[in-house]
Every structure is written in C-alpha cells, then in structure tokens.
C-alpha cells in the first residue's frame, strides 16, 4: 500500500451531496479482473456525454482551471455499493485525499485500505474550502497525517483517524500483514469456540 505522510496540493471542487459509488464508477465498468485502469472511467456519466462520449465541458474534471491530488466533495461522499473499484478509480486518476463533511462507512474503509485518505471537516470549513478554490484554484490545501491536520488559507482543522489506520498510512502497511501475524491467536480462538468444526458446511 502507498504511504501518505504529508501532502500540499491544489484541489478539485465537486460540491454535489450524496455522491454514490455508482456515480464514482458505474457498474458496467466493474467487469475487469484486476485493479488497474479504473481512473479513465471515474465519474464516467458526469464526465462524458452519454451519447457522444465527448468530455462534458461543464464537469469539473474537464475544467482545466482545476487540478490537484485532492478532491473536495459535498456531504455523504461514497454512499451506496461496497465496490472498492470506487476507491481504485479515484487513486488511479491520481487523487490521494478526499475532503468532505461526511463519508459513508464502507467507502471510508475501502479508501484507507488503498492509501486514499478520507478527511472529514466541518460543514463550515468545507464551504470555506469550496469557495476558496472557486475564487482562486491556485489556493492549496495542506494535509499532515502525523498531526491529523488540514489547512486552507488561514484555517486549520484537525481530523479524526483511527490510531491503527494512521500507523498503516504513515508506513504503507495493510491489514493482511497484521492479520496473518495473528494466525496462532485466530486458530486458538477457533479451537476455543469450536468454530472451525461446527461451522463447516460441507
């Protein structure tokens, strides 16, 4: 997993609320059996005209004014399906951080498992950031994972991150490494609860 320690970047504003994972990556693009290449279909049906396939000039990813490794989105980002393809499409496109005032649970977990940091800010700060980027797209956002801080212009907020996940992100570790190191404990648990025997289906 990619590690993330600090990041200072311009940002892309996408103020719509309740952006669901079907918008992030429509189901018809989930037929791949590997993790790569999803970025080209990120926000596919908002980004491209559904008849001609031409870029939709009104959509922010097609606006040359905005760029950066941070996406700033409206409330309740990532609701809907558990498809990790949503996180893969965002990282494949080049985003490293998503800022919103609220994240859906499964998306948040998927993002963190891919080194994509969901940063939850207050609604006021979200508004300030969205307005500030629209005023001047060169305004940068600074993220510090160690300090759990997000700064924009004169404002700094701290954001929450699970202490275990923070260590993972700072070091590029993932959960599999940790879980397989606990196999003995897991086997003991199975014996104690007779899970391995009782739960066998076949």
């Amino acid at each position, binding site marked *: 997993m990619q590690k993330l320690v600090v990041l200072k970047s311009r940002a892309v504003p996408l*103020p*719509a*609320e*309740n952006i*669901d994972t*079907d*918008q992030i990556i*429509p*189901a*018809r693009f*989930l*037929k*791949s*059996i*590997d*993790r790569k290449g999803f970025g080209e279909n990120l926000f596919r*049906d908002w980004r491209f005209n*559904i008849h001609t396939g031409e870029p939709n000039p009104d959509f922010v990813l097609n606006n040359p004014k905005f760029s950066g490794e941070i996406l700033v989105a*409206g*409330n*309740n980002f990532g*609701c*809907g*399906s*558990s*498809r*990790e*393809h949503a*996180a893969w499409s965002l990282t494949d496109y080049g985003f490293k951080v998503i800022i919103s005032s*609220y994240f*859906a*649970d*499964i998306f948040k*977990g*998927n993002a963190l*498992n*891919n080194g994509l940091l969901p940063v939850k800010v207050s609604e006021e700060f979200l508004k300030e950031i969205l307005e500030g980027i629209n005023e001047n797209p060169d305004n940068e956002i600074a993220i510090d994972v160690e300090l759990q801080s997000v700064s924009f212009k004169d404002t700094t907020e701290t954001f929450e991150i*699970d*202490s*275990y996940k923070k260590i993972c992100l700072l070091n590029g570790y*993932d*959960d*599999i490494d*940790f*879980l*397989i190191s*606990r*196999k003995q*404990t*897991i086997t003991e*648990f*199975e014996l104690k*609860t007779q*899970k*391995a025997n009782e*739960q*066998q*289906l*076949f």
Partner: protein
Amino acid sequence: MNNSKKTLFDKVWDAHVVETIPDGPQIIYIDKHLIHEVTSPQAFAELESRNLEIFRPEQIVATADHNVPTLHQEQPIKDELSRNQVEQLTENCKKNNIELFGLGHQYQGIVHIIAPELGITQPGMSIVCGDSHTSTHGAFGSIAFGIGTSQVAQVFASQCLLLNKPKSMRITVNGTLNENVQPKDVILYIISKIGTDGGTGYFCEYAGNVFEEMSMEGRMTVCNMSIEMGARGGMIAPDETTFEYVKGRKFAPKGEDWNEKVAYWSTLKTDEGAAFDEELSFDASDIYPMITYGTNPGMGISIREVIPAPQNESEEKALKYMGLEAGQAVNSIKVNYVFIGSCTNARIEDFRSAAQYIKGKSKSEAVKALIVPGSQQVVKQIYEEGLDKIFNEAGFQIRQPGCSACLAMNDDKIPEGEYCVSTSNRNFEGRQGQGARTILASPLTAAKAAIEGKISAFESVN
C-alpha cells in the same frame, strides 16, 4: 448504565472478538464468507501475489449473480468481459477448493437469496460478502455486512477482519400496518424519515410488533436496505419464525445439534434495559405504500402524496434527472418498465404477492414487465405453484436468476429517460442503465404499476 445488559448486536459481536488491539480495532472472526464474480477476482490475485493460501476455504460459498445474463444461461456468456469474470470465479474456486453454485447449478442465484434458502445463514453468525446488501442476513439475528475487495482478501487470508465496533441504534415500529403496506414500504418509509446518512456509523436493530409479525422474507427485505440509510447492517432478534424458516434446510443443523443451536439462538435478544447510542420509533399506522421520486433511496413519499418541492441544489438536480416537477401528481408519471427482482425483493413471497394481484389481469401495453427470480430454487417454486402461468398470461417475462436490472451490469438495462418501477434497492442516477429513471417500490405497487401503466393509490376496501 448497567454494563451487564447487552443488546442483540453486543451479544453476537462479543462472541466473535478474537483479540482487541490496545488503542485500536478488534480482530473479528468471520463464520461465513460469501463471494461472487465481481468483487472477488482482485482478492484472489492479492493472495497469489503474496504467496498466501486461503485459510478456511470450507467457510466460503460462491455464486455467480451480478454479471450473468438472465436469458440463455445454458449457453456461453456472449459478453467477453462478463464471461471472463465468471470463468475466473470458477477457476479460482476450483483451485482453492471453494464450493461454487455457478451458472447451471440447481442452487445458483443472488448471493443474498441463496445463502438463507440453503440454511447457510443462521442466527448468531458473522457473515460478510463483497456486496453492501449483505446486511440482508441480519434478518436472522446475525451480524452481516458488506466489505470491500481488500477485506475479501483479508478474510481469505485469516478468516478475520480488523474492525472498530460500530455504534448501536434501535428502530422500533409498533402498531398495525395499513392495507397493502409491504415490508419494502416499511423500510422505504424509515429511510425517507432518517435520510441516506441517518444510520452511518451504526449497526441497527429493528424491533417492535411490526417486525416480530413479519415473515423471514419480509425481514430480509427490511435488513437488506439498512445500508441505504448508511447503516453498516441491520438485525432482528431470532424467534420461532426464524427457527421455523431455518429448520430442515440443506445446511441447517440437524438432530441434537439443532436443539443445542436453538437453545443458544433463543438467548440472542436485547436484554431489557440495555442501552443504545440512538433510539428511534415510528408508528405503523403512519406508513402507506411508498415510492421514491429522486435519485437516492431517502427521497421517498407515499403514493398518496405529490412530488415535493426540492429543499436544496442536490434535490433540484435529482428532480431534473427524474424529469419531475414539484407538485406533480404521482399518477401522471408514465411507467414504461417494471422490474420485480433483486436481492431486496426476489423471494417466493414477493412473487406470490405480485401474482395474487396480477391474476386475471393484463399488463399495460406501454409497459415491459420483467420477473427475475432470485434463485433457481425460487424459479422452481414459481413453476410448482403455477405463478408462471399468471405472469405469462398477464404479459410479464420470466427470466433466469441474477442481479439483472438492479445494477444493469448485464443486458437488462432500462433505456435513457424511461421510468422503471423497480423492486430493487437503489435509484441512483444511471443505476439501471445510462439515463434510466428508477422509482423504487414494493412488489405489490410494482405489479399494480405494470397493469395500469402508472402509479396510483390502492382503493381502500374500508
């Protein structure tokens, strides 16, 4: 607060804690892992790339559902990418000794329909699947939730997940339901009240006489849509209805084991006085048949109402997408498609209720009506009970099992701009096809819309 009082969720969760990491998450043991073709290939690849073996293959069950055609399943899948994905699942299962109920198998079907009907889903279990509607299995009093593909790989590698215990919520609905109100209406009503993020961070228990009196099929419909209010999962305390449903199913416990299990399952109830982080309650008599009118499942109204005025920019955008205006009468929407299917509403009870209404009637000329059973076993029941004749005579098409037009990964797509009254779970933009307009409803409301070509209130018998 008295710590000895536990909720149903606490009891099941605590029984699965392998270890608590100081200042961190808990290692949670997973009893059953359900997989399908779309969210598993990258997890198998992940394990291979790390030279890891599947830790407990006998606790995994696979099926092909998301990406399969609903016509001519006996023939090779035409779409190359879909075929490749389904073949990859078959190969991965074979290589790793995982039981697969693939295309052509008598138990194939939508993952959240086959596991309960085979008795794989049992009370008190922890169940995961790379699909957000895994919350369905909570209807049995199990902890069941959707996971991402990285987590699928974690369960492959260790039969465990690293999780922080979610907060607890109880939603109580007491009273008498109005006529023609189905379980789908109950959950659409709840989501319309609390919104698509009202349950985020919570695991929800449904309580009250409305859920106690519901069939298992109805409870599954309710728990299925827990994720649509943001909740990680939903659950209902197991009772006689649950035991009766599980008993005798293929993988259900038998003999002395059955008695022991039932004794344990009977303890899985929230203790009196146990505290929840959030409690909500609703009155059953306030609930009428529901539809959605926007582009998220929280935008719901009863079929007696008119389209409400948008409250913000996102709702304005949703109405524009749906081609609807504030104040518009619901019965003015021209329905072109009706889809009765999906992990929410493709169980035999759903088709029985639709057939009962449809019997002796014909669908509207303007409507294409699809019946997509949730599993091969549901197909068998439909034919055994003669429901097929009712559907065929009314002009409905009966297809083969799969997720179908719920997410339109296969050819079952709704064309741009057309309205589809759908018994599925999501009305997101483009969910049923690019530009498609989805109106979520119960099987009964959907059946009525297919006959009339519009959505209208039921005439009251009283």
